[in-house]
């Protein structure tokens, strides 16, 4: 990983550490927490889309598996948060393998279809397995995260927890991108034929990245469940999966920083759009379309490109 990325990482660390000094109030802090949680999911998705060239239309399934695993295991079975947390990761990996191996063996976007399916199946299971999940009315009283005797009971503490994990994930992802594995991933995007002729095992790499993205989503889901202490199936439906995808594309999928940016923007935007009351969906859709039309490569690459375009036009 280059020096530049270390500097950026350090910069982000300082911003994250300092932000609570400027922003007060539980409401704003909780938005920052959600940004971190969504950012974690989208980071995994960005590795999958931008680097492995695959689409997952069911990332909310893994997010949900993480959330329900910790939720159900801690409330119904009294397991410790950590056991539940790792069980969620384990289950996500199993599901990712079951879906990924058959779908990623093949060329093309079968993963998109398979994940769409698994996303809905998981959603339906959350709804119908009443005795465990509480069905449509949800699961409540999920305990707070603690480290020994230290309780992550308020938004500020949780904020640092979430963003701490987020930075670790970012560090991990950046390391991967700037390594033999990362180059193999990018080469696959450049030319699958040439990549495999150079000895890159395409399907194995794709499955690995898919599993990694599932793990990120599962961790994010567990964090979500413990932060809000109440989960219902609607937090993990198709629209949520699509939203994660959208965050990735809007931020710019070929850049892991774009994932964080897109997640932050789209977490913040709907909150802001509440002033439009019931027409928020209309305004929201319009904004998304405008961004996509003028910056199809996402914000991080799109803003400089758009700027150049406008600047050039003025000159000529």
């Amino acid at each position: 990983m280059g020096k530049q990325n270390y500097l950026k990482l350090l910069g982000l660390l300082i911003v994250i550490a300092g932000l609570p000094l400027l922003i007060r109030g539980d409401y704003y802090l909780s938005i920052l927490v959600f940004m971190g949680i969504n950012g974690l999911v989208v980071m995994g998705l960005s590795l999958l889309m931008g680097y492995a060239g695959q689409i997952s239309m069911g990332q909310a399934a893994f997010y949900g598996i993480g959330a329900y695993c910790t939720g159900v295991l801690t409330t119904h079975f009294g397991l410790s948060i950590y056991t539940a947390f790792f069980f969620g990761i384990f289950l996500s990996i199993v599901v990712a393998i079951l879906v990924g191996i058959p779908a990623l063996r093949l060329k093309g976007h079968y993963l998109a279809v398979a994940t769409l399916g698994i996303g809905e199946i998981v959603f339906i299971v959350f709804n119908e397995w009443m005795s465990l999940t509480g069905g449509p009315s949800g699961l409540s009283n999920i305990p707070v995260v603690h480290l020994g005797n230290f309780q992550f009971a308020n938004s500020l503490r949780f904020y640092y927890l979430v963003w701490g994990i987020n930075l670790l994930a970012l560090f991990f992802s950046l390391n991967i991108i700037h390594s033999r594995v990362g180059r193999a991933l990018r080469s696959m995007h450049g030319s699958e034929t040439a990549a495999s002729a150079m000895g890159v095992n395409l399907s194995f790499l794709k499955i690995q990245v898919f599993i990694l993205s599932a793990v990120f989503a599962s961790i994010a889901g567990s964090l979500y469940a413990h932060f809000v202490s109440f989960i219902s199936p609607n937090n993990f439906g198709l629209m949520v999966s699509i939203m994660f995808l959208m965050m990735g594309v809007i931020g710019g999928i070929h850049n892991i920083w774009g994932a964080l940016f897109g997640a932050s923007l789209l977490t913040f935007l709907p909150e802001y759009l509440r002033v439009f009351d019931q027409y928020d969906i209309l305004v929201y859709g319009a904004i998304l379309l405008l961004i996509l039309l003028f910056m199809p490569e996402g914000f991080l690459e799109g803003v400089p490109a758009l700027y150049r375009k406008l600047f050039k036009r003025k000159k000529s």
Partner: protein
Amino acid sequence: MSEALLKIQNLKKAFGGLLAIVDFSVLVEAGQIKSVIGPNGAGKTTLFNLITGVHPVSAGKIFFQGKDITRLRPHQIAARGISRTFQTIELFGNMNVLENVMVGCHTRFRSGMLASGLRLPNMRRDETRIYQNSIKLLQMAGLASKAEMPATSLPLGEQKTLEILRALASEPRLLLLDEPAAGLNESETDRMSELIYAIRDQGITILLVEHDMRLVMKISDEIAVVNYGQKIAEGHPEVVQNDPQVIEAYLGGDIEYA
């Protein structure tokens, strides 16, 4: 005579009802430069795609170093020591010159996703070696100064060279070159033949598909001629040149010696 490096036995390939390769057999001895020539559509590139596992074989067998590689997948074949270039250049356009060569090193190293993510010591050691190997190759071909440039921004001749370097980075025993001189001018072609000699002198066996007859006749130790997916002649360049069937295949002696 010891076992040939590459042995192709009664190879057959059909795309739907179309027979691209019909009962094709050939031997490539270690240390040779062997060429496969033939008119357009004769099945030369298909042959490469079969050897490297891009297309499944319909019938027949391919042995490399005495081992059957017929059913292996492309990356497994690459790991065994067969590397290749492409007729239509297949560089990684989203990466720079150096990174393209670094991908070539892929099969020679092991460090995986977890080691990379955590920057374990063995991964850092691998990275240094990959970098050094790649830079060394670029220096050999005089491309080191362009290491940071996007791969596809190079002129055609250098792109072709870069593809060969990328293939060499995997430290192959056998290198398949698919029309390395296509689109090159005379002086570039001469440099290409120097490069091919240099590679052969490192002990790497070369199987070549080429249309530039001057180059083929100059550098080949042996030539196999294919037409309609069948081998119609094989032997030393002079022998092949005077084979009536070969002349017939090239429409009455259309072989260019220019």
